[in-house]
């Protein structure tokens, strides 16, 4: 491409992002300059990154050594098919989010726009570097840059106590994860001290050490991705962050963790042991089920989406687990099917979850309200946002013909082939897992219906909502772009999977391309057309035809014959918009059915209450099971240690003296 390697172009893109960020510091207070010039340029670079990613798929891997880094420890870079998939995800998703941000960030409290611009573009550039890194040192540097820049983005509105707390929690868990990743790299060098990925690929580890590396990677990257029990930062950080940042973190940053997990478990470690897959499957299922259940009972729209992100990451982890199981038994065609589902779900989720988070941003700007209980009926005031959000909702609920359905369908296809596994226990476990995945998909539909129905449909619950305005042109452009991505991923899966084939072929040596090429681009049949096939355009056409016919029938038969009168009010005279189903009421059946899964504090009105009210607070069990005991332990240990600090210099000197004496006596030759 113009004499440049794709890797060079990506590097130029990363540097360009950094330059744009620094350019924001030239006029840190000039919102117009930063928002309407720098962010759109950043979006253009994003599209460039996406296109380079597409071009690099199927091309041979490219490597480079950068001159920067420590002496004798330069940065090694490598662009292969796996990096390319995630680079295209990063590019296309960030393009939409950057365009949206051009209209979103405005003057106000919190971080100055110039600083925000630096943090935002540093975040993008460091995510790109994570994908390109080819040695542990470069990887960790980029990874930490990513964590820090996103921490500052989360705490944009740092004047609020709770936002600072959320940011701290995020940073804490990010660093616990980073320790896991660092240890994982340490294990994979096998003690040879060579931290290049090429050396790790060449290293032959014993099964025990390979397992240690895999488990450390699962924990380390899981902390970033939001796998149970290290998920607690997501529902805190996402509501705290500005909406484009939430979109970027949920849509793209979580995927870099998935990238890392795939890189370690399929590329850097050679051996694959079947129980790794079972572990990933179990953790993924727990995460998915937990995430979706909690997302159904939230009454804050961004929290709901955050838990839904946890659920999607769980589904991705389930896919990785299934891939590992198939890969361990050398059933590479099926492993490729599961891995394609994983990659496809990464792409789909990046599209629709960014879209939904951006929609919450528009709603938040228009209404200043995050609580579902105070929204409603916004489709009348914000038709653009409402209709574009509908695309995200359909994809998020996993309904045809949009992107979420394709990946979930592929994943379930993978499960359907599991009876051929040569292991009796697995043959029993895996169908149960498949059933749970279906349950998760159904509950995800419930959560999405709740999100959409409460915000956009019905009547306005508050009079102030009448002043809500639709999104501005920049915001609309960003939303339309992401909707387009979601729709295209939904209706044209075959061309995308033909591209993804290069990545699965690199990792597993098998792909779906051969089967797909026999069938034509309109049809998706991963193994054979006789087993199962999906024709998205046909589904789309059917839906369109049914809708149009129905509309025509309604118009033809009932047009002009509608009578409007007041409905039967069941004997109540005072029914206003507040009498609609609330967010809490909508999810009450779920709370009732899955009661043991929640930690609830409920207050019911009593018959004699002067001011009766009902409230329900749902808390995360993991706080009380894992985190609070650890916090209490740390507190009590600190209290013991603080007793050493008497404030007397003589006593402090005595400590050193006694230590010296003991060491002299113990270490006597």
């Amino acid at each position: 491409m113009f004499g440049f390697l794709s890797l060079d172009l990506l590097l130029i893109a990363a540097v360009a992002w950094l330059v744009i960020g620094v350019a924001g510091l030239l006029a840190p207070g000039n919102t117009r300059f930063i928002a309407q010039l720098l962010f759109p340029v950043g979006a253009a670079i994003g599209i460039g990154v996406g296109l380079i990613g597409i071009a690099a798929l199927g091309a041979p891997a490219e490597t480079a050594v950068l001159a920067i880094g420590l002496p004798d420890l330069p940065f090694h870079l490598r662009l292969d098919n796996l990096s390319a998939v995630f680079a295209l995800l990063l590019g296309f998703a960030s393009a939409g989010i950057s365009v949206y941000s051009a209209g979103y960030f405005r003057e106000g409290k919190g971080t100055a726009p110039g600083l925000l611009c630096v943090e935002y573009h540093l975040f993008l550039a460091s995510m790109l570097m994570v994908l390109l890194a080819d040695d542990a040192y470069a990887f960790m540097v980029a990874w930490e840059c990513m964590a820090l820049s996103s921490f500052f983005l989360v705490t944009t509105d740092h004047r609020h106590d709770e936002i600072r707390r959320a940011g701290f929690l995020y940073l804490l868990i990010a660093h616990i994860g980073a320790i896991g990743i660092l240890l994982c790299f340490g294990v994979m060098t096998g003690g040879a001290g060579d931290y290049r990925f090429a050396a790790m690929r060449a290293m032959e580890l014993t099964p025990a050490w390979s397992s240690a590396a895999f488990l450390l990677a699962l924990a380390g990257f899981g902390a970033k991705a939001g796998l149970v029990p290290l998920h607690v930062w997501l529902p805190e950080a996402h509501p705290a962050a500005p909406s484009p940042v939430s979109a970027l973190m949920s849509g793209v940053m979580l995927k870099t963790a998935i990238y890392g997990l795939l890189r370690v478990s399929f590329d850097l470690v050679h051996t694959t042991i079947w129980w790794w897959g079972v572990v990933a499957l179990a953790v993924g299922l727990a995460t998915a089920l937990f995430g979706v259940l909690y997302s159904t009972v939230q009454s804050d729209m961004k929290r709901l989406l955050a838990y839904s992100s946890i659920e999607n990451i769980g589904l991705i982890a389930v896919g990785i687990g299934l891939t590992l199981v198939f890969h361990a038994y050398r059933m590479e065609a099926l492993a490729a099917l599961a891995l394609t589902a994983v990659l496809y779900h990464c792409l789909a989720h990046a599209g629709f979850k960014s879209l939904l988070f951006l929609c919450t941003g528009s709603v938040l700007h228009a209404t200043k309200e995050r609580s579902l209980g105070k929204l409603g009926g916004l489709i009348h005031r914000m038709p653009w946002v409402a209709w574009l959000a509908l695309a995200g909702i359909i994809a998020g609920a996993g309904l045809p013909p949009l992107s979420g359905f394709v990946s979930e369908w592929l994943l379930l296809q993978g499960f359907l082939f599991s009876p051929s596994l040569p292991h009796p226990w697995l043959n029993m476990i895996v169908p149960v897992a498949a059933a749970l995945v279906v349950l998760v998909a159904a509950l995800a539909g419930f959560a999405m219906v709740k999100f959409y129905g409460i915000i956009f449909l019905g009547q306005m619950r508050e009079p102030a909502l009448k002043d809500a305005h639709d999104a501005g042109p920049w915001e609309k452009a960003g939303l339309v772009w992401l909707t387009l991505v979601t729709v295209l991923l939904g209706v044209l899966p075959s061309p995308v999977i033909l591209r993804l084939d290069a990545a699965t072929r690199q990792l597993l040596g098998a792909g779906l391309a051969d089967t797909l090429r026999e069938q034509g681009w309109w049809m998706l049949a991963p193994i054979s057309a006789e087993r199962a096939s999906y024709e998205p355009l046909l589904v789309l056409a059917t839906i369109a035809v049914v809708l149009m016919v129905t509309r025509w029938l309604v118009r033809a038969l009932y047009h002009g014959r509608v009578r409007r009168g007041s409905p039967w009010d069941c004997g109540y005279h005072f029914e206003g918009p507040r009498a609609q189903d609330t967010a809490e009421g909508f999810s009450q059946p779920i709370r009732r059915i899955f009661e043991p899964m929640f930690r609830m504090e409920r207050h019911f009105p009593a018959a004699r209450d002067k001011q009766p009210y009902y409230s329900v607070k749902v808390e995360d069990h993991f706080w009380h099971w894992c985190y609070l005991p650890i916090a209490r332990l740390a507190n009590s240990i600190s209290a013991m240690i603080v007793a050493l600090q008497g404030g007397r210099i003589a006593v402090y000197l005595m400590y050193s003296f006694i230590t010296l004496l003991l060491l002299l006596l113990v270490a006597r030759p």
Partner: protein
Amino acid sequence: MSSIPFSAQLINLFAAAILLLGFAMLAQRRNLALVNLFAFQGLCLCLATLTTAISTGQTHLFYSAGLTLALKVVALPWILYRLVRQLNVGGEAEALINIPTTMLVGIVLVMIAFNVALPISELSQTITRGTLGIALAVVMLAFLMMITRQKAISQVVGFLSMENGLFLAATSATYGMPMVVELGIALDVLVGMIILGVFFFQIRDQFDSLDIRHMEKLKDN
């Protein structure tokens, strides 16, 4: 005893004097006299190093001896004198533990030091190896002095005396450290002394006294 050469006997004599001065410092209550004792200790150290240099012909030990003379016999005692005069703290210094008890603890420490140093000095080939135990004992006595004194100035003298002990240990075990290291340490001690001098004035301004018990308030709760 006749098997020990004269120079080694001389070195042992000076080392013994250093140890004795260490005990004297532990027993001395007056700050001004403490500075005098410190200067004497530095002088003994200088002479011991000089003797070693002459008997072994190690040229860099001459420089070390000169450095010791300049720094520990002249410069530091002079600075300390001025500080004591300016701060007007020449008088009685209260100890946390009474003097006889301190001396008894000091004797125990000397025994431990000799016990610990014995196997090391057997490995050493130097002419000065017998003084390693003394050096360790001086370090410990200085440490003890830092612990038991309440005035900041006597703690600084204890710190400097500890450095003397370390220097003696380095000379006796390996004929001194490389010149660069010695120069670095000398500079550190000098700079540290100046900074502590500044601190004395700050502490006195803050608390109207150099008594370190006042600093107990500084801990965070």
